[in-house]
């Protein structure tokens, strides 16, 4: 490949966007490695502790866009203590020190302070995009710094973060000269917002296509905002309540008739069902609808709404829709590709839930479905087998039965055969979460058939080490394995230690592994960080438990143990 001058090869590489492809390209030969690294603009780091910021910057000096992920996935469910780690500060310091022309920063499950946000806003003149997903450690003061200092800000996207809210003045910090906003999402903020400042900001942002409001923005403000921004493509409403006598609803409906670009709709953080008729005009063109934060909409009104949404490709909803409601979805939404059904009453007695019936109806009615997250009351093998027959296109299949070890209620059998059918039929399956009563048999099936599987989540499943070994031996493309409350012990952990270097990470909590087993592993594999996370509340484990490990998180790394681990984490 020395026929072409470097500039030509570099030009060809410009067309290669995916980081996986660029990684592959860089391995071909020294010359391609060199050209690729100089030309790479977007860098994705799946585990911030796998590499150091200095080495990333050294290899990719022209980097403009950085994506970092910190805590393990189970941190989303309160399984990882706060202060475990995932601090972005050293990265920002390194980027500043080496004068990187950073324009975009995307963080997931990381800790970012107000000081870091302020540093970010002042150090990088061309900073355009900040996306924070499931992050913590900052307040609205940090957001004020971003608003005030980033002159060319295009995207400020806050998804499901824990933000300490010092009450709304941050919106007023966008200077009058800031007219570049394309995307603004502050739905997760809990506090009040300066409504006038918000309206003025929208009025001077002609390129704004995505706007997601928080609960503090009332319906009449929404209506005025929509008058100013009929070009919106993605809308998240705030509060959707009004006095029926006020006429605000019909005013909104009239305004929405002019907003014919809206394709994505979410929000309804507070809602009175009568107001929903106002959004019917928008429904016929919707591709994506997220009602998972709207428990105020009940089954009846939900169904009426969905009947208007014939072009829906993505639907996130609460299980208050019921099996019958899912039947309506199946007959209305023929373009559906992704469905998520969340539990509306996580501990409840099963009033508002869905069962295997709803899922079967969806699988029969929606031929394009490939991504599923389904919280349900129960599931049967027969239903899973039918779903596998109807839909062999699944790339993501996540099932969660609210009672985590519930067998098939009809046959009282484990759900091994049902999940077996899924993995056998769905040859492109990349992500799988299991649920219900499950034996080692299901893992035998997964090891045998799930050839493309990259991420597997296991909870309360299996009988013995054989289960985990089937998976480790069989799934060649496995990158992330997370296990809780399952009887896998040291034999499973230690049989194939080389496997962990081919994966990003392994999480095991409340399993049968012991400290001794983890120590052996750490000794054999210096390229892995083996972290033992002790419960912050633990004073002294009882004598029985002294050998067993509560939570273990291991990941491959090029930079050895991290120096920022808190007192309750032991790195072996």
């Amino acid at each position, binding site marked *: 490949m020395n026929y072409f001058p470097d500039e030509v090869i570099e030009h060809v590489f410009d067309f290669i966007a995916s980081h996986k492809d660029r990684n592959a390209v860089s391995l071909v030969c020294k010359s391609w490695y060199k050209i690729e690294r100089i030309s790479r603009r977007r860098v994705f780091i799946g585990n911030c502790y796998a590499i150091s910021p200095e080495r990333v910057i050294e290899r990719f000096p022209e980097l403009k866009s950085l994506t970092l992920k910190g805590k393990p996935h189970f941190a*989303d*469910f309160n399984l990882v203590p706060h202060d475990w780690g995932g601090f972005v500060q050293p990265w920002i310091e390194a980027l500043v020190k080496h004068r990187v022309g950073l324009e975009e920063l995307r963080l997931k499950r990381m800790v970012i302070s107000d000081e870091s946000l302020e540093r970010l806003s002042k150090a990088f003149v061309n900073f355009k995009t900040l996306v924070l997903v499931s992050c913590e450690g900052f307040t609205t003061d940090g957001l004020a710094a971003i608003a005030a200092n980033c002159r060319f800000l295009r995207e400020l996207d806050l998804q499901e973060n824990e933000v300490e809210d010092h009450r709304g003045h941050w919106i007023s910090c966008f200077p009058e000269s800031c007219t570049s906003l394309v995307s603004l999402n502050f739905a997760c903020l809990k506090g009040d917002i300066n409504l006038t400042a918000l309206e003025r900001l929208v009025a001077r942002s002609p390129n704004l296509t995505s706007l997601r409001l928080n609960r503090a923005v009332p319906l009449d403000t929404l209506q005025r905002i929509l008058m100013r921004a009929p070009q919106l493509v993605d809308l998240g409403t705030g509060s959707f309540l009004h006095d029926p006598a006020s006429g605000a609803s019909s005013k909104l409906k009239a305004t929405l008739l002019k907003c014919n670009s809206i394709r994505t709709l979410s929000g309804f953080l507070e809602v009175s069902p009568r107001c929903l008729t106002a959004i019917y005009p928008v429904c016929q063109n919707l591709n994506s609808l997220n009602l998972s934060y709207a428990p105020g909409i009940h089954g009846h009104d939900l169904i009426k709404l969905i009947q208007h949404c014939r072009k829906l490709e993505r639907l996130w909803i609460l299980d208050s829709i019921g099996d019958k409601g899912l039947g309506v979805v199946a007959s209305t939404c023929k373009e559906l590709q992704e469905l998520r059904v969340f539990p509306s009453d996580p*501990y409840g007695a099963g009033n508002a839930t869905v069962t295997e019936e709803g899922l079967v109806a969806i699988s029969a009615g929606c031929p394009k479905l490939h991504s599923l997250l389904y919280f349900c009351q129960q599931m049967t093998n027969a239903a899973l087998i039918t779903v596998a027959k109807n839909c062999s296109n699944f790339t993501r299949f996540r099932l*969660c039965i609210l*009672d985590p070890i519930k067998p098939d209620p009809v046959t009282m059998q484990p759900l091994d055969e049902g999940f077996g059918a899924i993995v056998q039929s769905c040859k492109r399956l990349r992500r799988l979460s299991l649920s219900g009563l499950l034996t080692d048999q299901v893992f035998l099936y997964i090891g045998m058939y799930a050839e493309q599987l990259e991420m597997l989540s296991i909870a309360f499943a299996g009988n013995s080490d054989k289960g985990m070994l089937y998976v480790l031996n069989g799934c060649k493309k496995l990158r992330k394995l997370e296990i809780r409350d399952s009887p896998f012990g040291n034999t499973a952990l230690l049989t194939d230690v080389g496997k962990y270097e081919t994966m990003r990470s392994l999480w095991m909590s409340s399993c049968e592994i012991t400290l001794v087993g983890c120590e052996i592993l750490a000794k054999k594999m210096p390229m892995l960080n083996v972290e033992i996370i*002790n419960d912050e509340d633990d004073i002294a484990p009882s004598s*029985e*438990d002294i*050998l067993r490990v509560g939570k273990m998180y291991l990941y491959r790394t090029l930079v050895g143990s991290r120096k920022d681990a808190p007192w309750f984490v032991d790195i072996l």
Partner: protein
Amino acid sequence: MSSSHHISLKMGRGTSCSSSSIESSTEQQRKDLSTDLRLGLSISTSSQHHNTSFSREHQPSDWPPIKPLLRKALEAEENESNSATFFVKVYMEGIPIGRKLDLLAHDGYHDLITTLDHMFNTSILWSEMDGSYSDRNYHVLTYEDKEGDWMMVGDVPWEMFLSTVRRLKITRA
């Protein structure tokens, strides 16, 4: 489907660490578990000895696996709908002793009529029903509004009804 949704996983671990002995002991525990399930406060091995059964006040924060923000939003909605009440008197024609009913415990008119049908063991006509019915077994539902007038239930939006209703009366059709 048990209505008291207590799930407990006494996934009791044996003290031995060898996997072969675990296999048989977990099988036994599985059988126990399928009959009696109560989910402890935390299911990690270090707090096995907690084994506390939970009421609605002590729910595990790590199951089911939903994000904290969603969990809080759902709990807030539940508290709102549980704590507010609005009891009104309901009289049936010919019966001097009335009943009391919490209107806020209902989603809307359909829900309310269902409750009243059960409470008074009858079938109630209201403004949204169509078709003709024989007079024999049916009653009509009316309400007294803020102005003291008696109106047919069902004509105005539910929220507006809630803001104006003072009491209910069921009369023969």
